């Protein structure tokens, strides 16, 4: 199995995130940056598929030079090699341009399966799996809470999360699979894994290397533009009451006063 998994470096989940004052892209300078937490599930699933069926896991990311830290993490978890698409011209790319750029790189890797996660914690679009399926003209197996690969039959089946249960969805390989959190328990990199990661092959590509037209990516190629960006008015705390045995009644009185019951 030739397995490709996409990852993204994002501001730490617990950090107060901001937009850059100058170009209104996500401010990555004032915060710690980490592998998007959801992507850990994607990397884990890729590794599990490799362990079950053999093959190779290639990590693909697009991001600034610093994003190599996230690649290293994926490699230290056990991925075999990585491709890092990195170019100043890509800065500010929207989801549409990012998916087109990633698809271009991924198609050169001839994957049997492309794994992505449900969303990145910074932009929260939740669309990259669908967009990669669209760009690569492959089946869209997103929102997967369980993935079963049958390489002999050339098939993959998922349980797609639905509001009241799930849909069982199957496709022929190659396919794009988007996983949700709780699908697995991502492993921690071992010391051995961290040491081994340093020697694993890493290819860095510029936009030109990847065959991308500079006008179609980055802020220049974005299909939408920010008009204004302001901090939300702070939500102040209201009435805080200590329970004296009639707390439930007190809450009901508040709700009634607000005409909520």
């Amino acid at each position, binding site marked *: 199995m030739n397995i490709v998994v996409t990852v993204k470096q994002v501001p730490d989940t617990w950090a107060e995130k901001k937009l850059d004052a100058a170009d209104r892209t996500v401010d990555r300078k004032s915060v710690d940056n980490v592998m998007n937490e959801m992507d850990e599930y994607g990397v884990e699933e890729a590794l599990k598929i490799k362990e079950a069926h053999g093959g190779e896991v290639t990590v693909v990311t697009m991001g600034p030079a610093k994003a190599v830290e996230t690649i290293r993490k994926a490699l230290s978890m056990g991925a075999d090699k990585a491709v890092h698409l990195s170019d100043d011209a890509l800065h500010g790319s929207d989801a549409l341009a990012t998916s087109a750029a990633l698809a271009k790189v991924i198609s050169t890797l001839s994957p049997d399966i492309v794994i992505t996660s449900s969303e990145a914690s910074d932009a929260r679009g939740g669309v990259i799996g669908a967009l990669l399926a669209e760009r690569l003209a492959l089946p869209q197996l997103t929102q997967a809470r369980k993935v079963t690969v049958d390489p002999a039959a050339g098939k993959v089946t998922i349980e797609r999360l639905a509001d009241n249960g799930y849909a069982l969805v199957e496709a022929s390989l190659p396919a794009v699979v988007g996983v949700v959190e709780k699908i697995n328990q991502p492993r921690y990199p071992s010391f051995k894994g961290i040491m081994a990661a340093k020697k694993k092959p890493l290819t860095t590509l510029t936009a030109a290397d990847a065959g991308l037209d500079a006008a179609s990516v980055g802020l220049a190629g974005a299909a939408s533009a920010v008009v204004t960006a302001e901090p939300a008015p702070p939500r102040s*705390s209201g009435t805080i009451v200590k329970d004296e045995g009639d707390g439930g009644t007190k809450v009901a009185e508040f709700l009634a006063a607000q005409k909520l019951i």
Partner: protein
Amino acid sequence: MAEVLVLVEHADGEPKKVTAELLTLARTFGEPAAVFLGAPGTYAKAKEYLAQYGAAKVYVAESDDIAGYIGGPAAEILAKLVGEASPAAVLVAATADSREIAARVAARTDSGLIWDATALSADLVATQGIFGGSTIVTSKVTKGVPVVVVRPNSTAPEAAPSTPAEQTVEVALSDAAKGAKVVDRVVEAKSGRPDLTEAQVVVSGGRGLGAAEHFALVEKLADTLGAAVGASRAATDAGWYPHQNQVGQTGKTVSPQLYIAVGISGAIQHRAGMQTSKTIVAVNKDPEAPIFEFADYGLVGDLFNVVPQLTAEIEKRKAG
């Protein structure tokens, strides 16, 4: 006036409330044209509702292939309509399925995509709360037909009875659209409660509940209020409640009239998914819990005493 395509959100033909919200929003800057995609015979159940909320036109595409495959069919049909109708915009609801369809439509039509809009002005400037609602951004699509994914509960639906012109759309799908085949749909939990993202009232439980069986307290309170049930990530990670009900940064974002947080500390992970709720009530035994920093009404106390008392008091008031 240019058409505004509104993708009808429905369950086997029964329209979701967000559809009325989108039609109401569409009317503020164009002529609402509903796009109904569903299995054969399902449109009949939506027809009256779409007319009531002012659809000037309805594009009806009925085929077993639409729900039979993930992503491809809906995107292909909707993108084709965008090409033919040259609408002012395409509006879809911010649900897991529809946002994926919207993204594919934007890619196919080389258009801009905006997700999780909470408002859209007549000149198509969208408002979004990003980073869990801590920054308010307005933005505009600069390319193609704006494809805007709108959060439920963003617009108050207003009836505007009409007699929509119906146009049957022939469903002729490419093989590529039929890659991800749905072989079964399994219902695990049929609660009878409203959809989490659409509900006017949400009652959520967290770590403070201590065990799966204690969610019964939350469910009972929710049912008294006709509310949906949510859960914090701590509760779903512990396996106490289904992942589908998770509210927060890696779960659903809700914006109800009333949000009651039971035994939830209110860390950024959770806050990001509910802080735009109109009124927030919190019950937590820890007076230092961050949720008390932004709750409208906070009760410091033992939820095992407070919640049953609250449920009983609401029932009493309803009976009275």
